[in-house]
């Protein structure tokens, strides 16, 4: 698999003296959907935040779309235009309308004209199923709608990879599916995705692979069927019984 979209090779990361990622070896193929799960504090967010350089790694190598991102002189801004990210808390820009949120990066980073950017933005809003909210401010949208705008904002840069950090954890239960549906569409269209989530239904239906992390290590890596049917480690069994009993 020389042509992995994302490849972690012996990746190590510390916050001060505290090691948060230990000897991570993972490869995500183009078009693959990888779900990352594990207990709180196990390093899931940190893992995916390394992929777009929001966190720097201290050891090993991380290759994204054929380019090592730890080499000095690599353009982080160029990398980030090819890797989209969606956060747990949406992080929409509250002083901008939905349309402006989506257009900001295409106009300022890509240099698109406002007309072009607006056309793309409206197409994306239709794709995330809220075409009529273009002129609203984020504060006037429901959580589920805000998260779909956040997905559209990331897609506006036409990324090759999408990272999701617990995209439905901050949502009321009745809004979770509207966001998962958009993510499922995206997966079907062949987007390469790393998704941190505890939505095991989504993992079962959509993921090609599930990675279970604990204390900064990848403890298990399996197809969803294998993982849910028979987790190998005690810690994964423990974790699953807690999650599924909810």
């Amino acid at each position, binding site marked *: 698999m020389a042509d992995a979209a994302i490849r972690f090779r012996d990746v190590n990361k510390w916050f001060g003296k505290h090691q948060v990622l230990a000897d991570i070896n993972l490869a995500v193929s183009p078009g693959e959907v990888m779900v990352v799960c594990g207990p709180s504090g196990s390093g899931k967010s940190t893992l995916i935040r390394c992929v*777009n350089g*929001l966190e720097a790694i201290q050891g090993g190598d991380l290759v994204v779309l054929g380019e090592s991102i730890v080499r000095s002189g690599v353009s982080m*801004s*160029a990398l*980030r*235009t090819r*890797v*989209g*990210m969606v*956060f747990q*808390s949406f*992080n*929409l*820009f*509250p*002083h901008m309308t939905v349309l402006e949120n989506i257009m*900001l*990066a295409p106009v*300022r*980073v890509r240099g698109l004209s406002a007309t072009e950017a607006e056309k793309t933005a409206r197409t994306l809003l239709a794709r995330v199923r809220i075409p009529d909210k273009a002129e609203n*401010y984020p*504060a*006037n949208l429901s959580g589920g709608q805000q998260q779909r705008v*956040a997905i559209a*904002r*990331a897609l*506006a*840069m036409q990324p090759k990879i999408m990272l999701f950090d617990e995209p439905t954890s901050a949502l009321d239960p009745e809004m979770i599916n509207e966001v998962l549906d958009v993510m499922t569409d995206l997966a079907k269209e062949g987007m390469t995705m790393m998704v941190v989530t505890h939505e095991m239904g989504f993992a079962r239906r959509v993921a090609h692979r599930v990675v279970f992390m604990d204390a900064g290590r990848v403890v298990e890596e399996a197809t969803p069927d294998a993982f849910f049917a028979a987790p190998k480690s005690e810690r994964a069994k423990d974790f699953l019984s807690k999650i599924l009993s909810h």
Partner: protein
Amino acid sequence: MLDFGVISANFKFLIVQGLFGLGGFAGGTLRLAIPAIVLGFVLGIFIGLARLTPSRLISVLATLYVEFFRGVPLVMVIFWIWFIIPQILRLPIPEYGVALTAFVVFEAAYFGEIVRAGIQSVPRGQVEAATAVGLTRAQTMRFVVLPQAIRNMVPALVTQMIVLFKDTSLASIIGYVDLTKAAQIVNNREIKPFELYLFIAVVYFIFTYSMSRFARRFERRLTPA
């Protein structure tokens, strides 16, 4: 009985000289307050940003600056610049230069703190989201952080501008003829303290009240619907 004739008889001196600073003396409340607010704020932006830079040296220097000027009385700063700097430079500094310099360097410390707090009030997630879509640090600052920070800063900023506006009366201690000093000069001659000091209180109030009214309207305009 009150005799407001003293106001109309000296109106030109009080307003043209004292308030606007056009006349035979170095003076003028507005002539000092307006540039002091503008320059103090501009210097304050740099100091606020300097406190937040990753460079330790710069942020420590900016912090020392802020702590120092917040720790000494404004009157002392005025006196230093009035008495000591001219000796060091061997060069006389006129009243206006002394007063303006003192206000700008002193107030910049306070404005710097307001700017820093305003920027820090913008959640980290905003910077991360902007970074994640590929904006540079400068673009993130300009399009995402500052617009939100300024909105959060407006109330504190206007309070500080009002304080500064009123504090300009301290410049009279070096003979700068501002509104307060002009009233004092007229009073020494006419002995009508009640009328004169009531009048300048009203003038100060008109300006400070307009500033807070304007700020409130500005804040409302900045709040997304």
